[in-house]
């Protein structure tokens, strides 16, 4: 039979165990970013272009009739050059490499930028065939971000290339 003092002791200790769990299961509150900050997520997954070459008629003639594809495209994909400017300052300059052992997979990038909520000038430039100079895809906009808003920079060739969402 437990003594009264032991019962009180057990109640206190089990209570402390429950209180400890109850407190740290919900507290202190966690704030991932300040309230006046918004988030820009840059996430692009894209197959770089290939450096294709048109076959000459002589080359085609030497090939079996069922394999006479007019273009000779290597398996490898081009690196992708990407630049992001925010309010005139460059925040990212990178070259994305294709994945895969044969460099034939997608090139990807995923970055987070925490910015003050408000209006900003955002410019993104991308070139997916580096043998060509300049940037094939450019998107430049004035954006207005609400506090804690998440804006995504993505790429979809079917939607015209780079876009902000």
């Amino acid at each position, binding site marked *: 039979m437990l003594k009264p*003092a032991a019962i009180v002791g057990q109640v206190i200790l089990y*209570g402390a165990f429950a209180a400890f769990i109850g407190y740290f*299961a919900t507290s202190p509150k*966690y704030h*991932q970013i300040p309230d006046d900050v918004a988030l820009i997520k840059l996430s692009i997954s894209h197959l770089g272009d290939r450096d294709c070459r048109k076959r000459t008629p002589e080359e085609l003639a030497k090939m079996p009739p069922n394999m006479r594809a007019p273009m000779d495209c290597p398996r490898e994909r081009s690196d992708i050059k990407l630049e992001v400017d925010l309010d005139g300052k460059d925040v990212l300059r990178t070259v994305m490499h294709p994945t*895969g052992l044969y460099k034939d997979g997608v090139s990807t990038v995923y970055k987070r930028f925490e910015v003050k909520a408000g209006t900003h000038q955002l410019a993104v430039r991308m070139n997916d065939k580096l043998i060509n100079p300049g940037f094939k895809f450019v998107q430049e906009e004035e954006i207005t971000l609400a506090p804690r808003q*998440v804006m995504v920079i993505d790429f979809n060739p079917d939607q015209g290339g780079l876009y902000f969402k």
Partner: protein
Amino acid sequence: MSVHAALRNGTKSVFLRVEEAFDTPFGGQDNPLRHLGAMALYLLWIIVGSGLYLYTVLDTGIDAVYSSIGYLSNEQWYLGGVLRSLHRYASDGFMLVMLLHLVREWSYGRYFGFRLYSWMTGIPLIWLAYIAGIGGYWIVWDELAQLSATATTELLDWLPIFSEPSARNFLSPSALSDRFFTVLIFIHLGVPLLLILGLWAHVHRVSHVDYLPTRRVMLSTAAALTLLALFRPALSNPPADLATVPGALAYDWFILFIHPLTDLSSPAIVWSLLFGLTALLFALPLLPHARAQPIAVVDPANCTGCDRCHVDCPYAAITMAPHPGRPGLKLAVVDADLCASCGICAGSCPSSTPFRRRETLVTGIDMPQLPVNALRQQLEHALAQLAGRTRIVVFSCARGAEAAPLAAADTAVIDLICAGMLPPAFVEYALRGGADGVVVAACRGGGCDFRLGERWTSERLRGDREPHLRHNVPPSRLQLLLGSAHDSGALAAAVSELRTRIETLEVATDRLPPYLRSASHHA
């Protein structure tokens, strides 16, 4: 002393002090700190039981998942809400108890030798527990789930394992589908099943496993968590919205601490910490540690195949095989990798009785570092030396209360590897050999370094376990003390109390007839 050893000893000292303080209200068997593994298993069963109910009522639709869980807390608070809260709080408790268990076992040096297997199989369970815990939070699909899902995938993407960033799955609300939650629940069921399988392996090489704590501990823990669930129910944060970053969140620091840690540092630092800690845990047994003691040795000529050592061994180190020389009989076989060198088997062997008249006492299973014959010789020598009005023999566990300072002309002290290695007949042998009283000092309840030494000793002396102390031994002349290394004062008090009792109660009439092994049987 190395830094590691100093750190370990310091931590052990803290654990010992707190455990002993907890012994006061709880007692040894009900002390949760002495049964952390069993506590963790019990909490896991609460998680499984409450989780099964949550699974049956969960709607895995992308919008319905939030509302179906919210319904439990808001409309069905008396059942679903309580079970949901129990599920969460038991999970938090599980993490807490698991980490305490890990630190305690490390501080007690239980990670090498015969405990190597349990240590190694325990490490992956930590990963499984956290995978299950973090995944469980996603199912609610509130802002906390959103934060955790995004942060976890961003952390995973740092590793070169995906061709495309997995965080792209949480870029926008349109990226998610109902199937995501179906897969999530499949994972949230599958990982805990792996965890249970891993737990089976974890305790596989331990016998008499405490699968559950005592009924009193279970009821008290369940009551505490239920009260917590009623007074502070687990609630969802606002629903997830991938178009915004969650604001201030009620946060579970037991399970989701990794996300703030990543935000404060970087994925590289967090992965380095996680892999580094895991590697360190695996490598701990390679660090210098105490040398292994000689293991138990079986003597086939004296082993009767009675099975008692096999039953009593705390680490399942003994198996019974057909006796090579005696057809139909069995022989104990010791597995060197599992033997803890505790001597509990020698204490359980019926051939260990000191009343055998052979000059050299050879028992069925014995410890080379302290054979039963040496124990008998030590006792006989001590009895011959004892003088004074009330002569007392103290059999003490070397890991329990220190008895050496009590040695005096009227008090003999005999150290044992573990109290469990004392064949109960030695108590009667001492009383019949000239001692007026015997004190047996074992570790505190639930505090035996070899798990079961104090339990088997108590049961054998009470007559509840074979080999038992014969009933003709007067209880007034025997004192059992369960004490830790910090209880030397209690042991001294027990010896003093026994001496006073024998001297004042005039119990001389219950003295056992003397027995002299060297005298002729018919003398």
